[in-house]
């Protein structure tokens, strides 16, 4: 740190952000029930972002650029890297904005359940939970990867910030396989910042059940417009539209028409009106400013424009830092009622995507349940192609809750009149 600050002084850099990340990662890779490889990655990354005020055509500008301080750099290499960033910043002609003042606070250790154990001990616990439900012969875990990490971060800025914190996390993926009546697989991810053995076991149970259902699904749904029920990760992806469109960068650059006080679901809403909060997943912003949870939407009305220092200043709103996680109150409708009327309940896609620019969402259906004429039929294949601009006035949220890393809210939503391309 001292050598970086010294190089900055030598170059005359007055405004900067230095970020240090040290990650210790223990990783296990399983093929079927066998451990195939154990890895450890002990890596450090330091970066320096420099800010350079200048004038262009009589307008005050603030350019910035970043240098990576790579391991093993000599003092000369370090000065060269920061010097290149400092040189480049004078050509980054962005209108001036003030850098946020950060705070100086003692290091925040992770006080969660992973902190008291070694990475190896926690890894074993997670693997135990992951494989605990893998007891059947007809459906099983095909493979899995587990990444158990301890991350130490420090941010020091010219605007007074000096903060550091520790964070443990586990994340991974697993594939379930069901060989009969047709050999199929499904792909799943998990991510926790606290030990969550029961939640992981429940997810694996659900995943195994869904894989068995997929093995029974043979036909694609018929082409047409459906009431569509989306759940779990798809639900989180769908609602990411509102987080993206309320970002100051999107709004300032006119990629998003949102403004504070807007009824973002439109004027005519016959379904549930959306209330949502932005959840701080890091203790500080990139500038070392404490982050807090904030209201995003209240009954469909936009309450916060969020984002970094530059676009926040241009729009005249508080720079909040960047949010990725959202919490949403659950709805009033139980899952059973959500699927009581005819609908297509799509539970698994190849890669469900929400495009926040166009408002289109969709993907290839790997497993859905067709609720029709009192029967529930598993189907596979075909694709969903919908627009949230058309669908958001008629959303019904489930009473049940679902939690993953960046989403805590209703398990499912029912949308009306969504196009599905399938058979015929």
């Amino acid at each position, binding site marked *: 740190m001292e050598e970086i600050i010294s190089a900055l002084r030598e170059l005359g850099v007055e405004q900067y952000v230095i970020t240090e990340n040290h990650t210790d990662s223990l990783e296990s890779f*399983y093929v079927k029930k066998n451990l195939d490889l154990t890895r450890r990655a002990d*890596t450090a990354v330091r970066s320096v972002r420099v800010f350079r005020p200048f004038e262009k055509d009589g307008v005050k500008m603030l350019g910035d650029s970043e240098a990576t301080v790579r391991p093993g750099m000599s003092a000369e290499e370090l000065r060269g890297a920061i010097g290149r960033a400092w040189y*480049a910043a004078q*050509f980054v002609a962005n209108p001036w904005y003030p850098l946020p003042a950060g705070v100086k606070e003692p290091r925040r250790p992770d006080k969660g359940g992973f902190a008291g154990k070694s990475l190896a001990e926690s890894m074993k616990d997670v693997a135990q939970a992951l494989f605990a439900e893998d007891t059947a012969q007809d459906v099983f875990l095909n493979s899995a990867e587990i990444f158990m990490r301890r991350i130490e971060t420090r941010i020091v800025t010219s605007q007074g910030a000096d903060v550091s914190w520790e964070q443990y996390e586990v994340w991974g*993926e697993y594939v379930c*396989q069901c060989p009969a009546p047709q050999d199929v697989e499904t792909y799943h991810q998990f991510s926790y910042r606290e030990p969550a053995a029961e939640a992981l076991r429940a997810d694996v149970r659900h995943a195994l059940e869904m894989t068995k259902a997929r093995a029974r699904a043979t036909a694609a749904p018929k082409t047409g417009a459906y009431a569509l029920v989306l759940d779990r990760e798809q639900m989180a992806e769908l609602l990411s539209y509102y987080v993206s469109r309320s970002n100051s960068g999107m709004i300032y650059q006119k990629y998003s028409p949102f403004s504070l006080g807007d009824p973002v679901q439109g004027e005519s809403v016959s379904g549930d009106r959306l209330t949502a909060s932005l959840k701080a997943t890091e203790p500080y912003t990139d500038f070392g400013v404490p982050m807090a949870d904030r209201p995003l939407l209240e009954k469909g009305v936009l309450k916060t424009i969020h984002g970094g220092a530059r676009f926040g200043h241009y729009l005249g709103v508080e720079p909040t830092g960047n949010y990725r996680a959202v919490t949403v109150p659950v709805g009033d409708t139980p899952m059973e009622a959500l699927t009581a009327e005819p609908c297509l309940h799509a539970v698994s896609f190849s890669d469900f995507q929400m495009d926040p620019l166009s408002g289109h969402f969709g993907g290839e259906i790997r497993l859905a349940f067709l609720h029709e004429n009192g029967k529930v039929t598993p189907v596979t294949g075909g694709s969903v*192609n919908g627009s949230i601009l058309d669908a958001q006035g008629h959303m019904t949220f489930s009473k049940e809750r679902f939690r993953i890393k960046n989403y805590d809210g209703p398990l499912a939503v029912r949308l009306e009149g969504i196009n599905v391309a399938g058979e015929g």
Partner: protein
Amino acid sequence: MKVQESAFIAEKRPLLLKLRDALCGQFDHASILAEDTVGRVYRVSRHSVNVGEGDNVRGFVVKVLDGGRYAEYSFSELEEGSIPGIVAAVRELLAADVRPEGLAANTYAPPAEDPTVFSDATEYEIDPAAMSDEQIVDRLTALRDKGLAMDESVLDFVAMMSWQKYTKLFLSREKDMTQSVMYTTGTVAAAAMKDQQVKQSYMPCSGLGGMELLAKMEDNVAPCVKTVVELLDSEPMIPGEYECICDPETTGMIVHEAFGHGVEMDMFVKDRAQAPQFIGKYVASPLVTMHDGACSAKQTATYFFDDEGTLAHDTVVIDKGILRTGISDLQSALALGTEPTGNGRRESFARKAYTRMTNTWFEPGTDKLEDMIASVKYGMYLECPSSGMEDPKNWGIQCMVNIAREIRDGKLTGRIFSPVVLTGYVPDLLKSISAMSGSAELSGTGFCGKGHKEWVKVSDGGPYIKARIRLG
């Protein structure tokens, strides 16, 4: 000019040789990969200018086999005196108690190695260091201004380019290999808004080499703006199965996402792919010959050896419609009793090696594009692919394209549908290919993930193809 070897790697080389000897003295097999990557990224849009670094990473990974079990240790720092600590960390890793009760561990025999000493580098015309940041930003700003001025409905026009240069050193008991590679990518993208929907078009270009790519970006500005303006009047896709003409980029996405992932042989090891049951059988039209390999083409995924020290290959995966072989990393080849094909790649030194594609493409055919379009009674011309997802086990297709242009009675009508999801069963699509144009084009601006992570640089492409595809 040849890309110069990293001074950092050259300086660390004596220490790495000592580490290699220490590891080989204590474990049944050991290898080291050292990586030094530098690059820069430039982006100019209506409201923003960015100049930054690419994925500038520098570090080391050792992989050891002892008592049949593999372990890896990635680290950033290597100094005199580090070696005993690294050896101890690897020992600790091999002994770590991380397995639940009752689960076993896979074991492997040490890989056979031919003595190999290798050193080479790719070539470039214009060294990035010969151009200042100011010159590059000015060139991109001129492209942006040209794009913004072309049509008043253009909301934003983005010009971006990046270059990346790396040196990798691979050491094992029998191998001492060094390579230095540089590639460059450039994209122009336009955005326009109508009825709260932002429509986007983009045109990429890429290649091995240096800043000579900037000149190619100039030609892409006008067609990019023309397309985004057309997209403002696009209609939602009418679901159905259509005769389709795919442009080379869409062909590339089909080659890569729909089929390529299915022949990655780490998926064979896990029983996650259908392909092993189809070796020696028709999986595509006899018109189709498919290649993958770091030396099968000169594009952004070209290299001389992979991250496990296997020399680059040009693998013919499909030969005239018949599936011949998959592509493989070293550990998967050991498990399967096959030969590695130079496809063991890591996102960086800090990540595991998996079987990964490189330059993946269909050979061209003999048809003319205009004849192919003229042969379509009613169908779609597909272009501007946006994303795709693999499904090796079930050979399901998910590819998304931005534009489907209507063809009626052999002519483009001007009607456009967007966005479009391609679905279906991979062999059905590949067997339906009935025409291929006479030249192949590859593009390598994108990255490929394994599942939803492990991003590596790839290129893909081929000729224009005619096929029946389900669109939604």
